[in-house]
């Protein structure tokens, strides 16, 4: 049973994959944008932080569910 719980929690955390890819793409594009227009850096940074916070939410959902799986099923 414990093994199954561990596997379930691991699968739930796979949601972090999407957040990682999303934040990676966003940061890459932001770097390109800053390289092209250095004067717009502060605006780009704000948008990037906001986008990262939104993308991170999926990872957080996965984490919370993994935690619930571990704590509730035990």
């Amino acid at each position, binding site marked *: 049973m414990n093994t199954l719980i561990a596997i379930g929690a691991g699968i739930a955390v796979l949601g972090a994959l999407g957040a990682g890819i999303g934040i990676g793409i966003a940061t890459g594009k932001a770097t390109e944008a800053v390289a092209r227009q250095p004067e717009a850096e502060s605006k780009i940074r704000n948008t990037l*932080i*906001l986008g990262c*916070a*939104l993308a*991170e*939410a999926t990872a*957080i*959902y996965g*984490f*919370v569910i993994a*935690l619930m799986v*571990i*704590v509730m099923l*035990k």
Partner: protein
Amino acid sequence: MEELAKNLMEELECKTVFTIPVLGGLEIKESIVVTWIIMAVLILLSIFLTRNMKIDHISKRQAVAELIVTKLTGIVEGMIGEKGKAFVPYLTTVLVYIGISNIIGLFGFKSPTKDLNVTIALAVMSIVLVEAAGIYYLGVKKWLHKFTEPIAIVTPINILEVFTRPLSLCMRLFGNVLGSFVIMELIKMIVPVFLPTVFSLYFDIFDGLLQAYVFVFLTSLYIGEEIE
């Protein structure tokens, strides 16, 4: 591991502080008491900062108050734009409340936003405001017509959005606060010295304020979309 799970569950559970004996006993939870504390601090601070206001030869206290108000309303106005000026005071209040309740864990209180009921209430308030703004600015007919835009076939999705928007708002806030809290507890358990301070800068302060910003940003985005 067993002990940690027990500790976490204890921390996450919102205890009833006392019961008001009306309507068969109203339970007052811990999150409500902490909310009252935040409200009291904010109200007292506002009264203290806005006493004896003058037009010229302003005191230092008034200068600080003006700085705070201009900065905060400036942030919200930048998000919602010229059209939604009427919503700026409400959104600023929500920003200040969520921001303070996210970082109040540093002072030994239990964050109200760690209670799912609080975030649900905030999200419901947001969506009611969004739809009410739509009705007020466009009128019932145009507001109803907005559900069929851009084409009639997306109407079910548009109606579903009324429910998924508050759901994602409240789950995002709750999940982030809960997640950062759990990570902080784990770090404290593994390395009790120095390292928690560094991580608490990110997880408690930066992430807490960022989530308050995101919540208000999304609400203002929805309002802006609705009154367009």
